[in-house]
C-alpha cells in the first residue's frame, strides 16, 4: 500500500467550492500491515475513509488534551489506563508555558555558561526530599 502525504501539486480543483488534497505516506511493512488489518476490522474500503476516521480521532484527542482533559480507557472492572502521547502532551495547557525575554549582565552569562559546561551537581538532600513527595 502506498498512502501518499505529499500535497497534490496540480492546481486545486474546485468541487462545489471545496478543495481536496491528496496525501502520500511511505509506510514501513509493519505499518502497512497494521493499516490493512485495521481497514479490514473496521470494514473500511478505501484509504480515504481510513485516513478520514483516523484524522477525526486524532483531532478529537488533540482538542481534549488542549482543554486539559486526560484520556483514559476503562475496563469492565473499572481498571483505567491513561493515553499518553508525547505529541499530545505538547498541547496540554499545563505544559504550555509562555516564553519571556530575560536581560542578562555579561558576568551572569559567564557564570551560567560555566555552570552548564560542567557536570551537574549531585542533588541536595532537600531536593531529593522534594522529588520523593
Amino acid at each position, binding site marked *: 500500500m502506498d498512502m501518499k502525504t505529499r500535497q497534490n501539486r496540480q492546481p486545486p480543483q474546485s468541487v462545489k467550492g471545496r478543495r481536496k488534497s491528496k496525501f502520500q505516506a511511505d509506510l514501513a511493512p509493519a505499518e502497512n500491515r497494521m493499516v490493512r488489518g485495521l481497514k479490514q476490522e473496521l470494514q473500511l474500503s478505501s484509504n480515504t475513509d481510513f485516513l478520514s476516521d483516523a484524522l477525526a480521532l486524532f483531532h478529537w484527542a488533540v482538542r481534549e488534551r488542549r482543554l486539559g482533559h486526560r484520556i483514559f480507557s476503562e475496563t469492565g472492572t473499572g481498571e483505567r489506563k491513561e493515553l499518553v502521547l508525547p505529541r499530545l502532551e505538547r498541547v496540554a495547557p499545563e*505544559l504550555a*508555558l*509562555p516564553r519571556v525575554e530575560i536581560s542578562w549582565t555579561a558576568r551572569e552569562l559567564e557564570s*551560567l555558561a560555566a555552570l552548564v559546561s560542567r557536570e551537574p551537581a*549531585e542533588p541536595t538532600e532537600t*531536593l531529593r526530599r522534594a522529588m520523593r*513527595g
Partner: protein
Amino acid sequence: MLIRRLEEQDQVELFNCGDEPLNNYLRRHAWSNQEKSSIGVTYVAIDEAAPRTVLGYFTLATASVPREAFPKKYVRGLPPYDLPLILLARLAVDRRFSGKGLGHFLISEAFRISLRVAEDVGCRGVLADVYRDRITWYARYGFVALEGSAPDGPQRMFLDIRTIRRALKGSP
C-alpha cells in the same frame, strides 16, 4: 491540599504573603498574564475544603539564552543551539500558612512541571530571581547563585535540570 493552574474565580484579593509586589502580582496581573498576554502560568495551592482560597502560588515561564550571547571561551563547549530555560518567576506563601512546608510543596511541584517540560520540549535548567533574604532557602534545593547580579536587586540563581532528574531517579 493540591496545586493546579490559577482560575478566574479564585479568591486572590485576601492573599497576603507580606510582600506587596508578590501580593499585587497575584491580585492584579497573574490571571491576565496567564490568559490574555501569555507571559507566565501561575499555579496555586488550595485546600480542597476551601477550593477557591489561594494559600500559595508560583509562576513559571520559559526563556532561552542565545548561544552567541555567551562568552566565546565557553561557546565551544556548549551545544550548537540556544539554551532553553524555565523561569521560576515568583513563589509566595500566604502568611497564615507560612512555616508549614507549603513553600516546599510548591517548589516541589515547580520542579516536577519543569521535568515534564524538559521531557517534552527540552529545558536545560531552572532560573530564579531570588530576594536576598531567601538565597539560603533556594540554595538548600541546589540553586547556585550566578555572579554578576546587581547587589541591590534580586540574586539570579540556577539549578541544572539534570540535577533535578537525578534527584527523581534517586528516589525510592
